[in-house]
């Protein structure tokens, strides 16, 4: 089959690789009909996530048709149309039983690696380095889906791939980001990053009852999308001082909750930006946490900072004094996608939201390298790339 493989920093290549096979009795093989490039794939692409091997198949947002099921998979049959959540979760362990699927205790065969970096291991993930399992990803013609009796959700006809594909990651991720803000009537939410997750987080915050949502980015086309498609007020951090602007917009109090939808490769003009960039280049600081620092400093006293942007290791100059003295709450996590599949599919079916508005490019799988390139460089007003195998 054809698959998009990571070949080194800033190098991906569609190659011919062997077809996947059932390895465990609860596996299914899925023929992929749509797959996407995620903003978090750019961290792999740029080489900032450790433990990638040349030849790793990328991709963790995919859907398709069931081709084959293992002996223990009773709920799916050949021909079913499914969306596959990006965390791999067994459904049997203590974390899964508490719906903390991205913390599954059984799905990472390389747990020892993750333990060295994180203390304990999170769940295995599709196509996301060997630290989280070394699973082949979904930017391919076929994928092996472990625990197929727990993860995938069946999709009825009548909904397009584009409407439901993002149930695999970014819509639930954005929704969980808004849910962690514990939104109350009258709340003002600030969102750092107007990429696909940021845009869906704005929408989710409104779905959960936010009064106002203020979105922050530096690309005019993304800010326009946040205003016109998602209904946010917007700030460009290259032209205004975000902390002062947010203070003024919220009557001197600050947003009730802040969502960091940027993660470890955020940008910042000025000296601190150069400092972090240099440290990251010298491997002294894996993560550049500008958005995180700013969201902490911006949040109102007693408010919540919800972190859904991906971080890989350690951060510098973390404003712990602000967190402690101002009673802030930090909530975070890889999304427990399985928890949100049904309720969010309902919202899509009811017409409350159509996440397909973020798609700007639909390419053939063979053009994956071009997709990564324009997505990274923000060329051609790229927001979200969908690949068709």
């Amino acid at each position, binding site marked *: 089959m054809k698959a998009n493989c990571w070949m080194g920093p800033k190098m991906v290549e569609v190659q011919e690789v062997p*077809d996947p096979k059932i390895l*465990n009795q609860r596996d299914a093989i899925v023929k992929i009909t749509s797959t996407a490039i995620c903003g978090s794939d750019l961290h792999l692409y740029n080489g900032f996530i450790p433990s990638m091997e*040349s*030849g*790793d198949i990328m991709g963790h947002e995919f859907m398709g048709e069931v081709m084959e099921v293992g002996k223990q998979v009773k709920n799916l049959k050949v021909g079913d149309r499914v969306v596959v959540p990006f965390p791999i979760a*067994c459904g049997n362990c*203590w974390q899964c039983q508490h719906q903390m699927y991205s913390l599954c205790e059984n799905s990472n065969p390389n747990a020892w690696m993750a333990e060295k970096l994180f203390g304990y291991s999170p769940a*295995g993930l599709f196509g996301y380095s060997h630290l989280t*399992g070394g*699973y082949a990803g979904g930017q391919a013609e076929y994928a092996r889906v472990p625990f197929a009796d727990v993860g995938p959700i069946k999709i009825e006809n009548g909904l397009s791939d584009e409407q439901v594909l993002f149930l695999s990651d970014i819509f639930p991720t954005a929704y969980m980001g808004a849910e962690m803000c514990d939104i109350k009537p009258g709340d003002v939410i600030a969102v750092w990053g107007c990429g696909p997750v940021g845009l869906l987080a704005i929408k989710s915050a409104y779905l959960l009852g936010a009064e106002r949502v203020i979105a922050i980015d530096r690309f005019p086309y993304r800010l326009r999308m946040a205003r016109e498609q998602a209904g946010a007020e917007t700030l460009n951090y290259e032209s205004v001082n975000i902390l002062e602007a947010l203070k003024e917009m919220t009557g001197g109090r600050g947003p009730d909750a802040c969502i960091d939808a940027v993660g470890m490769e955020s940008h910042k003009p000025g000296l601190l930006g150069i400092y972090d960039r240099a440290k990251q280049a010298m491997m002294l600081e894996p993560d550049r946490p500008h958005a995180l620092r700013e969201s902490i400093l911006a949040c109102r006293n007693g408010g919540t900072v919800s972190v859904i942007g991906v971080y890989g290791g350690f951060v510098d100059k973390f404003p712990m004094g602000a967190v402690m003295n101002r009673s802030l709450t930090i909530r975070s996590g890889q999304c427990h996608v399985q928890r949100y599949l049904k309720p969010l599919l309902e919202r899509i079916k009811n017409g409350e939201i159509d996440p397909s508005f973020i798609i700007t490019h639909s390419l053939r799988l063979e053009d994956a390298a071009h997709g990564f390139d324009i997505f990274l460089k923000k060329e051609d007003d790229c927001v979200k790339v969908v690949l068709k195998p």
Partner: protein
Amino acid sequence: MAIQQTRRALAPSHEQPAKADASAPPRRRQVREEYQPTAPRQARSEQLATALGWFSIGLGLAEVLAPKGLAKLIGARKTPALLLRTMGVREIIAGIGILTNPRPARWLWSRVAGDAMDLSVLGAAFLSDKSEPSRLIAATAAVAGVTALDVIEAQRLTRDKNDRVVRVASKTINRPPEEVYRFWRNFENLPRFMSHLELVQVADGNRSHWKAKAPAGMTVEWDAEITQDRPNELIAWRSLEGADVEHSGSVRFERAPGDRGTEVKVAIVYNPPGGVLGVGIAKLFGEEPGEQIKGDLYRFKQVMETGEVIHSDSSIHPGLHAAQPSGDETDQ
């Protein structure tokens, strides 16, 4: 009761834990020993070390409290009281060190150094005309005897520390202890999750034969016997004479609090071939038993909770492999 009411009045109601029941008596908690990482705790067999520790303290107290009397006793009247007091403080510190450390090799070596100092003080006293040679000779003989004991015990503890390697690992498994114990107790199940184990044959009730992969394509074999078997709680074993790697081990099954399954705790004690250096080399190749036990326990949990060992496209191969399917490794 009054105290409880006051506290409730002070605390906002939503901060009361849901399960707290004011009418129930407060739960008595057992006072526990401080956690020691070298489980299983060995019975303290260092009786000689303990005796030497108390001797140190006794002698130290005498030196500190009655330096003049002591100097007279050993026949070295001219020894300055301050010197004896200083030596006494050193003795007391060494004694406390020996008695409070589970493996006090270093403290015993400090006693050996102290003995050398004592002997040199006695040697100096022989040159003084105010000394009593007969007493000095007796004192010197006594110190020399204690020195010999100190050296023997310090060497023994140092050797033990280097040769014996203790490895522990634990994992909480979401199944009741009865089930977890039953699966493990059938030793022939173990190769299902212990990746280095090739087979286990149970001979009779207590004895079994084991065969495992070793570094560089070799295999090691041994016979083992069960030394303790408490159903649903503990299995302990040791290798029998002639084993390639002499070792003993135990696995405990403890009911996790709050009905959260079973805490499985494995401890292995062994004499690595090649000593400490051997452990280092094994670590380089990822074959170190401590890492193996952790991996084995992780897979044990997978088998107990999900029914089988879980593979990713790369983990199914030994060593590094790209995360993509491989054509040849078909139908396991």
